[in-house]
């Protein structure tokens, strides 16, 4: 199946091409003829070349390194391309070429130049002419290793020969065109040099103005003021706190201060609690003492606070003894008469013991009072400490904010000053370079092109391109026309699109097929 299919495809392609062969040939011929005609009647051009040399002044060769100088030269030459082809230069050159009288001021060399107004008018009036001239002007840098301190570049001017049909085929304007190329090249170089010099002068003027300007000086003064203020503040107020303030500004010590404060507060709280406890104790002891003194102790229960008992083992012993004696006394009471002596003795012993207990209680009270006093003093001291600390922290914070403000001002001014200083340095460098700029010299005169060998289109190349384009166009035409042609072309067509068989296919027969008489 595959070979049959490919055969069918090939035949279909062949059919498309051969059925529109005439149209295709017409298209091909038209395209070829137009390519041939345009390249034959295209204007011939004459080229005049002039070589320019850009080199560093003697001072700069020593001032700058070889590498930077070479780069500066390359950059310079690249910018010259735009300069040569710029509107003002082309306009001035064209005006000079057409011998228009200049109205500008006389230069240092005594040659009168075109005024800016004149140049501008010319530019706006001759946009098309300038565009044509610009197409003919090229600036090229020769390849190869350039010398370190100089670089050459060529300005090429193309001048078309007028090959309009009026002069065809003799072409009497050949030598005129060649001379025109040379003359325009001369005018162009002159205009370019003049314009370049004007630009240089303008640049020098600008730089000088900037250097004289007060921007950098003002910045420096402001910076100095800020620095003095900052230093004075550090010396007078901050002193030893500088480190602390800086660490505070950077946020390290905040937590340290806070924890210190909580520790103090905890200590004070515990002292308060202990004081409260002791006070209650003292109050109870005092109450007990007062009760005993009033009733004179006899037969009275001495109820001592549990805490007091706990605190003093000697007192426990005493209370025990008192209890025992009381019991004995009770026991002895019935036997009072006989045992009166014993009773008396016991009574005395009891009194003695009671006296001892009171003394012990008194002593304890005194001790407690002392302890309370000591604790109170300690607490007061702590509170003072905390207050002092807080005061110090607030002072430090205000100091820190001021320090921060001063420091920021200083930093800002430092940045501004640095920028200004860089600008000033750049301007100074530019000024130095402007004082001793790269020299541009013309090497030789613009060449006079030989009138016998103009530059013209390569006809055979254009014909080949035209042939290819024609073939592509013709094929496009054939396939498009076939695509949009809906007529039935063969048996397959009818059967596909109409759906009935083809009974007979009659070829075109030139003679009559019916002979009648």
């Amino acid at each position, binding site marked *: 199946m595959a070979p049959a299919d490919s055969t069918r495809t090939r035949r279909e392609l062949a059919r498309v091409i051969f059925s529109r062969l005439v149209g295709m040939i017409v298209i091909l011929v038209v395209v070829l003829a137009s390519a041939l005609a345009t390249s034959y009647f295209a204007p011939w051009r004459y080229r005049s070349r002039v070589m320019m040399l850009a080199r560093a002044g003697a001072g700069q060769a020593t001032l700058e390194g070889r590498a930077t100088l070479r780069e500066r030269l390359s950059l310079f030459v690249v910018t010259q391309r735009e300069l040569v082809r710029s509107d003002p230069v082309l306009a001035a050159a064209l005006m000079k070429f057409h011998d228009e009288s200049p109205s500008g001021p006389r230069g240092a060399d005594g040659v009168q130049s075109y005024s800016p107004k004149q140049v501008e008018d010319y530019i706006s009036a001759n946009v098309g002419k300038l565009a044509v001239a610009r197409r003919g002007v090229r600036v090229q840098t020769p390849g190869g290793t350039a010398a370190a301190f100089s670089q050459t570049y060529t300005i090429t001017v193309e001048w078309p020969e007028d090959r309009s049909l009026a002069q065809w085929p003799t072409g009497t304007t050949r030598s005129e065109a060649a001379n025109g190329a040379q003359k325009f090249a001369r005018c162009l170089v002159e205009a370019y040099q003049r314009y370049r010099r004007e630009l240089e002068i303008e640049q020098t003027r600008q730089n000088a103005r900037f250097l004289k300007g007060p921007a950098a000086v003002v910045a420096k003064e402001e910076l100095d003021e800020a620095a003095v203020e900052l230093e004075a503040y550090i010396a007078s107020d901050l002193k030893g706190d500088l480190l602390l303030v800086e660490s505070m500004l950077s946020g390290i010590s905040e937590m340290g201060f806070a924890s210190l404060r909580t520790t103090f507060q905890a200590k004070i709280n515990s002292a308060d609690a202990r004081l409260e406890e002791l006070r209650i104790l003292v109050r109870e002891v005092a109450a007990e003492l007062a009760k005993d003194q009033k009733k004179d102790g006899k037969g009275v229960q001495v109820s001592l606070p549990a805490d007091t008992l706990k605190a003093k083992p000697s007192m426990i012993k005493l209370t025990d003894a008192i209890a025992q004696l009381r019991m004995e006394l009770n026991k002895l009471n019935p036997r009072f008469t006989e045992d009166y002596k014993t009773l008396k003795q016991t009574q005395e012993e009891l009194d003695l013991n009671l006296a001892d207990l009171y003394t012990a209680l008194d002593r304890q009270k005194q001790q407690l009072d002392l302890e309370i006093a000591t604790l109170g003093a300690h607490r007061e001291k702590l509170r003072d400490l905390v207050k002092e600390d807080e005061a110090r922290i607030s002072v430090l914070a205000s100091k820190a904010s001021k320090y921060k403000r001063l420091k920021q001002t200083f930093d800002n001014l430092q940045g501004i000053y640095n920028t200004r200083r860089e600008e000033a340095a750049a301007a100074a460098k530019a000024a130095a370079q402007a004082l001793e700029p790269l020299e541009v010299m013309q090497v030789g005169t613009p060449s006079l092109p030989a009138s016998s060998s103009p530059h013209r289109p390569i006809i055979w190349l254009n014909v080949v391109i035209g042939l290819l384009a024609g073939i592509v166009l013709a094929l496009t035409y054939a396939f498009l026309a076939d695509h949009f042609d*809906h*007529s*039935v072309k063969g048996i397959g067509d009818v059967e596909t699109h*109409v759906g*009935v068989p083809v*009974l*007979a296919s009659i070829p075109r027969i030139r003679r009559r097929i019916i*002979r009648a*008489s």
Partner: protein
Amino acid sequence: MGETEAEIQAEPRPQRQSASASLAGGRPEEIFRSLWASVFYAAPEAPRSVLVCSANRQEGATTVACALALAGAGSVAAPGGESGPDRVVLVDLNLHNPAVHKQLNLSDGGGVSDVLVGEKPLADVLRHVGPGKLDVLTVGTRRDRLLEVLRQDRVRDFLADLERHYGHVIIDTAPANMYPDAQVLAGVVRSAVLVAQSQQTARESLQVARKCIEAGGGKVLGVVLNMRTFPIPRFVYRRV
């Protein structure tokens, strides 16, 4: 119509031999003979009458009809002049642009339109075209009475008459896409051959013509692709 019928039955033969015509020998003859075969002999219930028309004007329908009739008449073996089912009649019902008489070099005295409006008997207008067994009915003089001529009942009777005396009837008619004639006749004749000019007739026109004939009640047997060209030169064709 009764009268006419009787006359035909009594005298069905043309009196005069007014012309002679033949196909060019060789390739054209061969092609039209095979066309004849595929129209009349190819199927078991092959028609005896066939309508030849094209989609548009000037696509060669009349020429194809004449050539087909000549090929059929010439191929019949029996000598001319005899009556029988193998005789062929060519009817020109192209009322708008009749050309059969021009093709066969006949004078258009009277013809099928006269018969259909009932003015002349069939025998008066039948012409024999030699040397084969071909009779021809030219269009006649009453072309202006189009609507009378195309009345289906009359045409049906007329066709039945013809089929009684002739083996094969070939009717040339006006282009299907331009006039309703073909559609009307398709209801009577039933079988049609479409003539298309290659590189000229659009496939859409052919579709329209086919639909016309089918709408009238007929059937398109097939397409005759006329004036076919072979754009690829022979030496190229052999190589691709």
